[in-house]
């Protein structure tokens, strides 16, 4: 009897003192998964090896407690600590990765500037190439205008067909031609230009002199309108002097009615007068 009473009193004492814990394996495997996932970032664990190891050790201790069926308080406490350790490991990885961004910022900044520099020089090269192409195209166009290389420079001849008969007004075709010449001249902004007007021998000398000057002047005005600087351009009228063909027939006279544009050979030098040639 005495024995029975003793044991019956002692059993509840054990039960109350240290209640055994329910083994919650899903909880533990979820925590293990969280630790494993710290590595989902490439090399994630390498950023915080100590914190990750502490979290794993904490979880291992929790597993041991669960297997021993330890008292609930101890298990709950270890669970709390493990959860916090995992969170600390996660934050430490985030911190280290962010610090790496900060540390490599200067390197990346230089890289961006270097790339921009390369890109800019490539653009400059391609722009230069396209400019060269444009200049070549213009020269080709100008050569279509009966351009002639002479001692005085490059001579472009505008035929009479570009002017209205007996007038100094340029026809539509003439305007287009002069516009192209302006573009060409703008490619060589240092060269001086001499514009010379000529007529055939029909009509009075005075009239022809005036007409040749007016036609040369008209070409100058159009060039200036198209951006060629006026102070680069000199204008001379030669009337019926310097014929390039016979005035005896219509074809020859048409050749003689013309405006010549002489582009100086050297930068800044004045185009020498026609008389100097002889």
């Amino acid at each position: 009897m005495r024995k029975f009473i003793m044991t019956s009193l002692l059993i509840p004492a054990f039960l109350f003192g240290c209640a055994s814990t329910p083994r919650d394996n899903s909880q533990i495997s979820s925590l293990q998964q969280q630790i494993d996932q710290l590595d989902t970032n490439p090399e994630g664990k390498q950023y915080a090896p100590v914190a990750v190891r502490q979290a794993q050790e904490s979880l291992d201790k929790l597993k041991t407690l669960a297997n021993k069926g330890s008292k609930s308080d101890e298990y709950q406490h270890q669970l709390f600590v493990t959860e916090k350790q995992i969170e600390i490991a996660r934050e430490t990885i985030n911190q280290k990765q962010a610090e790496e961004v900060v540390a490599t910022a200067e390197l990346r900044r230089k890289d961006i500037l270097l790339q921009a520099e390369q890109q800019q020089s490539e653009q400059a090269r391609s722009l230069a190439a396209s400019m060269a192409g444009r200049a070549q195209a213009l020269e080709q166009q100008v050569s279509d205008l009966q351009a002639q290389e002479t001692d005085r420079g490059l001579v472009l001849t505008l035929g009479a067909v570009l002017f209205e008969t007996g007038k100094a007004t340029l026809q539509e075709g003439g305007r287009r031609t002069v516009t192209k010449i302006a573009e060409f001249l703008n490619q060589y902004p240092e060269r001086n230009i001499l514009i010379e007007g000529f007529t055939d021998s029909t009509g009075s000398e005075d009239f022809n002199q005036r007409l040749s000057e007016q036609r040369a002047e008209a070409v100058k005005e159009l060039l200036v309108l198209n951006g060629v600087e006026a102070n680069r351009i000199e204008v001379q009228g030669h009337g019926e002097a310097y014929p390039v063909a016979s005035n005896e027939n219509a074809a020859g006279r048409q050749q003689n009615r013309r405006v010549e544009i002489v582009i100086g050979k050297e930068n800044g030098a004045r185009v020498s007068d026609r008389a100097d040639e002889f």
Partner: protein
Amino acid sequence: MIKILSSMALLSLFAITTACSSVKPPNSLATQARERIIQAESIGADQEAPLELREASQYLSDAEASMQRNRHEEAQLLLEKSLITSELAIARTNSQKAQQAAAQIEKDLDLLRRESTPNTQSNSTFEN
């Protein structure tokens, strides 16, 4: 018989009360926990990890209350909770600050990238 029974009952009662209590008050752990909270505050945890900081302080004051009632084992566990929570507050604060700095740098680099890249529209086409 009754005498024996009552003495047995007293004995088992004693077993219950002493089963889960340690002897020494965890004073040095309490000091550590207090210092860790101060450390967290000093790096700006009140801004970057206010919840954790408050939690750690709560565990500390709970532990202090337990110690006053001589429940030292309970206090020990509460102090451990306070400590690990302060650690988390510190880790979160450091992480937040580093991430903010990194985000600012990404923004600056992005701006630099956009500014230093010449726009491709400048290649005008030439008309004849």
